[in-house]
């Protein structure tokens, strides 16, 4: 697969055929994960820096495992309590890390645009593992891959995103990715959690969850940050759960065989019914394993094709 990208900053930069090729490739890598010996020497001698300036369990572990299964070395930066937590010395941190000669830096940062900023400053590959409210491209790719394996093609499919769209990098990246693949995307959220100029996006917006669920093929619940209530965007968590919490009956309104997704971590009983999360219609754990395959694919593409071209 031809891979002309130096960095992965947002889904924006990928074409739909690149995304589909990536999914095909990811299927090969997924096979490695089910072997008895889950390791190949593909990226031996390559090093990947994990720069996580925001708390993260699954994404960080997922990148770490993905790199190690391909025999790349990984290095994590402890950022808690460091000045980086405040985002103040990102340029210096970046230059310092670059001087340590990594082949790629995976960055998670609380500021929108932090990955773009680092990509402009540094010549090694930057993989955005989530920046502020802006983008989380590997999450969107793993969501897409999860459904790619299930569906035969993306045409005539409908995906519903429920929850805090305004403050969600997952929502932004999912919308970009699925719209690119020809999926019709619906959103359901209170107006206080929607971007003000949502009419510019390729989505249809619903305020009633029953109505939104009718005839959809998949529903992605988004995590509700519990502090949204304190900042005056919601009257109470209980009211949110009543209006926007996903339950079994919603799935009955959807198309037969419809699935439930959640990027995690979940607030059981708030945005998703606890039982539904563990139900057979839930893809939540498939998303986690798809994530490793997608990240192996990306690391492979960045650490073989681009670096070869650079030299």
């Amino acid at each position, binding site marked *: 697969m031809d891979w002309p990208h130096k960095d992965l900053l947002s889904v924006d930069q990928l074409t739909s055929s690149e995304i589909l090729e990536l999914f095909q490739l990811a299927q090969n890598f997924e096979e490695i994960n089910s072997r008895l010996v889950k390791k190949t020497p593909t990226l031996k001698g390559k090093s990947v820096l994990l720069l996580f300036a925001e708390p993260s369990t699954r994404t960080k572990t997922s990148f770490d495992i993905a790199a190690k299964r391909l025999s790349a070395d990984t290095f994590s930066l402890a950022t808690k309590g460091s000045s980086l937590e405040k*985002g103040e010395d990102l340029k210096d941190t970046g230059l310092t890390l670059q001087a340590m000669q990594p082949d790629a830096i995976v960055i998670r940062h609380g500021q*929108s*645009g932090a990955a773009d*900023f680092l990509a402009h400053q540094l010549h090694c590959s930057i993989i955005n593992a989530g920046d*502020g409210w*802006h983008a989380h491209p590997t999450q969107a790719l793993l969501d897409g891959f999860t459904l790619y394996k299930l569906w035969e093609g993306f045409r005539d499919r409908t995906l519903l995103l429920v929850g805090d769209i305004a403050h969600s990098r997952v929502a932004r990246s999912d919308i970009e990715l699925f719209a690119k693949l020809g999926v019709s995307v619906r959103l359901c959220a209170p107006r206080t959690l929607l971007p003000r*100029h949502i009419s510019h996006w390729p989505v249809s917006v619903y305020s009633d969850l029953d109505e939104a669920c009718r005839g959809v093929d998949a529903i992605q619940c988004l995590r509700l940050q519990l502090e949204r209530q304190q900042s005056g965007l919601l009257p109470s968590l209980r009211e949110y759960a009543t209006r926007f919490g996903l339950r079994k009956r919603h799935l009955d309104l959807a198309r037969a065989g419809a699935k439930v997704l959640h990027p995690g971590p979940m607030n059981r009983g708030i945005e998703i019914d606890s039982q539904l999360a563990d139900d057979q219609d839930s893809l939540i754990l498939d998303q986690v394993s798809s994530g490793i395959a997608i990240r192996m694919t990306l690391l492979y593409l960045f650490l073989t094709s681009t670096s070869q071209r650079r030299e």
Partner: protein
Amino acid sequence: MSERRIIQSIVWQGRVCDCVLEEDRISELRPAEEEGSGGELILLPGLIDCHTHLREPGQEHKEDIASGLAAAASGGFSSILCMANTDPVNDTAAITSMMLDTAARAHPRGPALHPVGALSRGLAGKELAPMHELARSGCIAFSNDGVPVSDSSLMRRAMEYSFDLQRPIIDHCEDPSLSPEGVVSEGPLSDRLGLRGVPSVCESIQVARDILLASYLDIPVHLAHISRRESVELIHWAKNKGVPVSAETCPHYLLWTEDKVGDYDPLAKVNPPLGTADDVTALRQAAREGIIDILATDHAPHAPFEKEVPLSRAPNGISGLDTALSLSWGLVQEGVLTQKDLIRLWCHGPARIFGLRANGFNPGDPADFLLFDPRESWTPTADSMRSRGKNTPCLNQELPGRIRLNCREGEVLYGQFPKGIA
């Protein structure tokens, strides 16, 4: 012995003229004696910038009074006003005097520096600053610029108290509760980039409040850096009703939209944030029609390293003194403004609002003028800009026109007299 100088064959509002100076005064501006020779340099009165941040005392790594005045001199200004959000804040006579002393030592010929005193003590928005003391030591106006006055009662009392001191109030219009940590205008761009947006009503709500206060009290108020269409419409309404309100905008709001932020460019981050194409259209029309009275730079220099951070962390502001006239001249070339508009917006308008003398090229007027070559161009770079702040979206871009001479009271602030001086 009185010194008499004649600058020959210069262009004043489209006509070739000779300008006669008598020491520090204009003696006469008359049609040129010799037709044909020269006639390329444009004559303008010295500009007045009523809105700058010179950062001294306290943040001299961004700018100081000497470097700010040097930028003003080469930018064509004969007088500038500087805001009070220094560290410590300019809310005591000691700070005002220190600013004036520093300016007089660094640039004895000018440009003249007129400090704007703090409206509230420490700019905290709680109690009035000692306005009488500040006025007596040289403050020309009062403002809480940088920190919006949320308390409408304090705003009212400031207007009333300063009115007796004959010092105008300049208000930075922003309802901070609508813009917590806002980075760019709220709109498709903020939605796409995942940035906190500043809604346009954040400015216009405060504009409406100030207009209603000015109307109720019948006391003037000057509105700083107006950036949105709704604000323009409110000011238009107020002026039609005879409310004593005046308003400024900046070259960047007449030239650029939020698209300048592109993919997170901190050089285009400014407060209020750059607006939409519709805002630019409204502001251009308002500047032509006099709804917007004047232009100002809102010169906000920052050190390069301070802007080399992710956009949300970058400080607000555009460095403007070096580029103001060239950017404005670009608007004249585009046909947005006439030369007459330029003179009103950059000289006679601010002189009227802040009670400064201005050069109308009538006999006895102060010889505050500049010569501008519209055929040349220049490029603001880290080296060519005299301000310590290189933070402008037009950095390293060629701009039209070049200042050849800037004089205040007949003394050269920048450049030199052309040949052909008698």
